[in-house]
């Protein structure tokens, strides 16, 4: 399977993605500079974490106008798989490919730690290899991960099963203490209506080796690979 990782000035998880998807999962990875418009014929686009444009103005606000994002939007509109991790999630929200926005963490601190999420939806190309309500241990590292959407937007998200993962405790309970950043209804990751665009704050790119404290990120990548091998191509 062919993955393209977008690279913005200030991206810093682009190489984590390359290492994980290419090195550990054995897939073909192309790095695409943000000024390129040619995505190099990928099966899946990864918008990685980092601090694109220094997080100036709002996280992801300037990156969304990079030339590559027009190509990513076109690719997504044709049904192509797009996953945005951390800053990538913020960029996809700013670009309007996903609804809502990521605000400053409730405690105003940058949070870097392992957390747990509960997989609420398994009928997405990104979570098909998870069990419903499976708890994944994944790392987060962000200052703006506090998901917000107006009440009617949340109603729509929940009604259509677009909330894919929520922060939880190790046993899978959604508690205030296990919601690290104050996200509305503990939302950690969502997909679009067509379910081909997925954004999440936790890092499946940094959790695929025992030495890193968790291998649960592999469930996400294996799901993507499975969805591709299952597709009629």
């Amino acid at each position, binding site marked *: 399977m062919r993955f393209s990782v977008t690279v913005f000035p200030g991206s810093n998880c682009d190489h984590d993605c390359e290492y994980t998807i290419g090195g550990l999962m054995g897939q073909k990875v192309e790095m695409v500079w943000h000024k390129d418009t040619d995505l190099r014929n990928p099966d899946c686009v990864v918008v990685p974490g980092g601090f694109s444009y220094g997080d100036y103005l709002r996280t992801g606000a300037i990156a969304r106008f990079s030339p590559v994002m027009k190509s990513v939007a076109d690719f997504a509109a044709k049904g192509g798989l797009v996953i945005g991790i951390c800053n990538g999630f913020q960029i996809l929200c*700013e670009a309007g490919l996903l609804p809502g*926005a990521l*605000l*400053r963490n*409730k405690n105003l601190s940058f949070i870097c730690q392992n957390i747990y999420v509960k997989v609420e939806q398994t009928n997405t190309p990104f979570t098909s290899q998870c069990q419903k309500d499976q708890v994944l241990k994944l790392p987060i590292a962000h200052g703006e991960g506090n998901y*917000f959407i107006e009440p009617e937007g949340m109603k729509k998200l929940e009604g259509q099963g677009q909330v894919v993962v929520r922060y939880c405790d190790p046993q899978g309970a959604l508690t205030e203490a296990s919601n690290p950043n104050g996200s509305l209804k503990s939302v950690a990751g969502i997909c679009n209506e067509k379910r081909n665009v997925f954004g999440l704050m936790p890092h499946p790119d940094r959790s695929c080796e025992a030495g890193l404290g968790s291998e649960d990120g592999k469930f996400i990548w294996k799901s993507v690979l499975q969805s591709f091998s299952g597709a009629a191509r």
Partner: protein
Amino acid sequence: MAWHVNVFVTLKPSVMDPQGATVQRALNQMGYPFVTGVRMGKFTELEFDDSLNEEEAKKKADEICDKLLANPNIESYRYTVVKK
């Protein structure tokens, strides 16, 4: 003649502002108990050249705010256009 545009971007009332709440608590502790609300925002100064008339300057200011300076999901904006 040119235009000086002052843009104020603030979080919508429905959006929680933990930064504002922290500043309010600090002010209350500093001896300003009458401060009952603080909302933080962003202030941006734009300079437009004289190729635009006032109406066009306002139109472009709206465009710039809608596209980049404010995120309509969470923020609202207002601005003033002043002749320089």
